[in-house]
């Protein structure tokens, strides 16, 4: 560096500085212009976009779940209601340490491994700031404990909502079914808008069948909320439309009597009004407490129900398929009259067995030695003579039996307003071709003659068929629902047998009355003290085949292989108001085991004023939500 350069030229330096400041001013102006352009772009050009963003930020459309419709029995007894239930929820964004918070909550309320596991699962598929349920059905005590410790656990809230409650517990489980939390699969099927505020849906039974009716229509409100999702004010509100309140034709008192009549047994009772098709009682035992399912049943409880050898979850009234056995005889007898194969006076000789022409195989009567040399139709029904019906079935042939049986609702679902109904089997040539892929053999017709062989029917079908006899040919689809919000519902008439003359109905009804009233009747044990006329038929269905030459000996068999006891009846015989079918698994004797249950049901329904029952379980909610 030279000396000249070392000298400072103040004037030159000042000029350079001024020049550089001028450039700096240009820099400042350019940068400021960029800022103005940017803010102009956001605030003028894109104003509408950001205005919308801002409104969407603060205004939320919140669904308001409709109140689910209540369910009453025919006398106004409440069968399904909505009670407040408290749920412990956690908003993850507002929690400092999730593990710590869970530990604190664990000290305050009983938290199971299962709860935490489910909670963590729910956490993975939630929206931000969404309150995720940790524990359902929190008690008042637990709420108080949480409230006191709230400062320690920010982000933990108690959420109150109305949930289904069945005050009669297991009594109506097989009629009503239950609601449960909406599953992933159901989410795809339901209307996402209408269910946006709803957590529960009918899973099975009446609750599922009338889901649309009971659910109602969702309401909504526009709310202004802050970034943490806290609602500050409601801008607009459209009330939801509550679900319809429904009245059933079921009589809770009769239901309870029927349920108690089957106590300790496996079986089903269906009682139906033959005039309307209305179901009066429908019981399947053992039953279960439907309330367990409402907020998700624990795996312990579920396994206990699932592994119970008595199958409490199985609705025997709709799903149980049993051989109708001798209870089918009045119908076949009517078929014989209708098709002119027999008259009321036609007599058959019963040596204790029947065999087809040119066939050595003997079809035995249940009574060793038979019912005598001369048995007419009435005697055949009253004493339940098998040989008479073997011969009649042979004469009628399977085609006529099938055609006639269909008119009593056999072999097809009855169309009851409930779920999972099974159709039973009314065998025919076509059926055998299709299912068994084989020809019909005449011997198989013989078994059908006494309601055995391939033939199967549900207790509901037996009640429907009995109603057809009681109403002299009117086939109705059974109905649980009687009225919605006060408006009556009529069961559709599916068929009417005008081609069968009254004289034939009289003959059959007369014979069925003699089953109880006659000295030879298989249900004569029910006669004592009867204040009305009852028409009935007993039945005993074989569970295991008894080989020819062997003897049925219950004492030598496991109880599970004992015969099923069946009983169908209607009353009063001259003006039928109720028809009943009873099936008791492994009950052995239709007349003495199933018969008394039917009589109790008749008496509960026919005698005295209609009665109501108190809830069998005392679960009275402590707090009512104002609706």
């Amino acid at each position: 560096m030279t000396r000249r350069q070392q000298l400072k030229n103040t004037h030159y330096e000042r000029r350079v500085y001024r020049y550089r400041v001028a450039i700096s001013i240009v820099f400042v102006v350019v940068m400021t212009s960029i800022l103005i352009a940017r803010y102009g772009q956001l605030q003028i050009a894109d104003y509408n976009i950001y205005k919308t963003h801002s409104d969407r930020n603060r205004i939320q459309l919140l669904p308001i779940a409709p109140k689910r419709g209540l369910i009453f029995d025919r006398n106004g007894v409440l069968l399904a209601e909505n009670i407040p239930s408290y749920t412990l929820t956690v908003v993850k964004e507002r929690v400092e340490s999730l593990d710590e918070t869970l530990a604190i909550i664990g000290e305050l309320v009983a938290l199971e491994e299962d709860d935490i596991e489910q909670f963590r699962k729910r956490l993975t598929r939630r929206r931000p700031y969404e309150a995720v349920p940790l524990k359902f059905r929190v008690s008042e005590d637990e709420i108080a404990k949480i409230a006191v410790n709230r400062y320690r656990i920010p982000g933990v809230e108690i959420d109150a909502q109305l949930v289904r409650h069945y005050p009669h517990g297991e009594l109506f489980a097989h009629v009503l079914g239950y609601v449960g939390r909406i599953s992933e699969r159901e989410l795809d099927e339901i209307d996402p808008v209408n269910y946006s505020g709803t957590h529960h849906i009918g899973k099975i039974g009446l609750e599922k069948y009338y889901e649309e009716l009971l659910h109602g229509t969702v309401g909504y409100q526009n709310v202004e909320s802050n970034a943490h999702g806290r609602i500050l004010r409601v801008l607009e509100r459209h009330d939801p439309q509550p679900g319809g309140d429904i009245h059933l034709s079921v009589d809770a008192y009769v239901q309870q009597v029927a349920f108690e009549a089957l106590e300790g047994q496996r079986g089903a009772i269906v009682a139906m009004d033959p005039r309307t098709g209305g179901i009066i009682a429908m019981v399947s035992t053992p039953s279960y407490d439907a309330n367990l399912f409402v907020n998700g049943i624990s795996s312990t409880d579920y396994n206990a129900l699932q592994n119970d050898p008595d199958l409490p979850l199985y609705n025997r009234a709709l799903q149980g398929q049993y051989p109708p056995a001798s209870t089918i005889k009045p119908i076949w007898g009517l078929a014989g009259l209708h098709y002119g194969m027999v008259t009321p006076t036609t007599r058959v000789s019963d040596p204790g067995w029947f065999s087809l022409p040119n066939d050595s195989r003997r079809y035995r009567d249940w009574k060793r030695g038979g019912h005598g040399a001369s048995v007419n139709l009435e005697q055949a029904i009253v004493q339940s003579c098998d040989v008479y019906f073997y011969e009649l079935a042979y004469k009628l042939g399977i085609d006529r039996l099938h055609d006639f049986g269909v008119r009593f609702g056999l072999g097809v679902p009855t169309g009851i307003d409930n779920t999972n109904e099974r159709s039973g089997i009314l065998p025919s040539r076509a059926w055998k071709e299709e299912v068994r892929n084989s020809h019909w053999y005449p011997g198989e017709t013989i078994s059908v003659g006494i309601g055995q062989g391939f033939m199967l029917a549900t207790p509901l079908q037996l009640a429907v068929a009995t109603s057809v006899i009681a109403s002299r040919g009117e086939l109705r689809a059974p109905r649980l629902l009687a009225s919605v919000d006060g408006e009556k519902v009529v069961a559709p008439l599916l068929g009417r047998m005008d081609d069968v003359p009254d004289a034939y109905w009289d003959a059959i009804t007369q014979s069925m009355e003699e089953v109880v009233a006659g000295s030879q009747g298989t249900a004569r044990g029910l006669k004592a003290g009867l204040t009305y006329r009852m028409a009935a038929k007993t039945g005993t269905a074989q569970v295991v085949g008894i080989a020819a030459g062997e003897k049925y000996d219950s004492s030598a068999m496991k109880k599970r292989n004992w015969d099923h006891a069946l009983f169908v009846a209607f009353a009063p015989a001259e003006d039928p108001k109720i028809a009943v079918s009873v099936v008791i698994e492994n009950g052995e004797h239709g007349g003495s085991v199933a018969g008394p249950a039917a009589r109790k049901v008749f008496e509960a329904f026919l005698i005295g004023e209609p009665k109501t029952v108190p809830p069998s379980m005392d679960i009275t909610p402590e707090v009512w939500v104002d609706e």
Partner: protein
Amino acid sequence: MNNSDFVRQLPGSNRSISSQRTISQRLRIDIPLLVLLLILSGVGLVVLYSASDGSMATVLRQGRYLSVAFVVMILVAQLHPEQLQRWAPFAYIVCVGLLLAVDFVGVGAKGAQRWLGVGGFRFQPSEIAKLVMPMAVAWYLSTHPLPPGFRHTFISLALIFIPTGLIVIQPDLGTSILIATSGIFVLFLAGISWGFIFSCFGLLAMMAYPMWEFVLHDYQRQRILTMLSPESDKLGAGWNIIQSKTAIGSGGFEGKGWLLGTQSHLDFLPESHTDFIIAVLAEEFGLRGVLLLLLLYGLIVSRGLWIASQAKQCFGRLLGGSIILTFFVYVFVNMGMVSGLLPVVGVPLPLVSQGGTSLVTLLVGFGILMGICADERLVHQ
């Protein structure tokens, strides 16, 4: 009035020869700049009142900080540029020492060590560096003929690099860039050659990739990615920028009205008192408000540059110019980051954002600026 009043004024007449100076000259302050700064502070308090949801306590606390800062500004204005020039090298050494101390024994939050605790009192040495950096570079350059040759440029860059590097490893990338900028402005104003400037830009462009790979921390990279595409992480890192853009944009030209901004009052806008306060202003006062604010800043910068160029001493000119240009860069970076032009770095909006320390640093800068040319203006008159 009585006689005694008259009597007392008599000795004053003696002094009046030396004090034909106005009060402002005696206090060594620039009245137009002071007024502009006070107006800006007033605007800041009005916006802060809204941003804090009408918390008078917050406004009063900020008012106290402002009072203290303005007093400190006036005190600093009493220093003569020669004194500052003499202290500059020592201040630089002390500052580097403190920055080293931060890196070794500093305390921090969120993974960054920025604070130094001395007997219960915590402070950020990087705040000191904001002022010491331009002082040191101005000191070095003013002792040599300008424009600086290659050797002096290189030594100046070294002076800039040492504190910058120490702050980068705290890590505090935003502050380090701003501090480096204040040093580079001194170099620029000193007249370094354009060739050198352009080659530096070229070098920076080449360094960009290795910087990205090896120097930037994950969260810093994330911030840059977020700025480029905030939608990619709506509820995480992108949340702040989406919400601030929404606040600004939804203000429109006229704004939603004071205290009526929904984005800020319903807590959608993060950091609404501090770094993001411009979004509150933009939402409530609209583009009109933004333009008025920019006008205020523009006036302050113009006045500052004018004052700086009045300085007779090279040191004062360089220091004053750098201080006011850095002030503008703060404004630009803050408004740029809130509106999504720049990545989010923690830079407050000068005199508007809530805060104590940074306010004092800022007004100390203005005090230095005023002090630099107080003597020169006297001479002019």
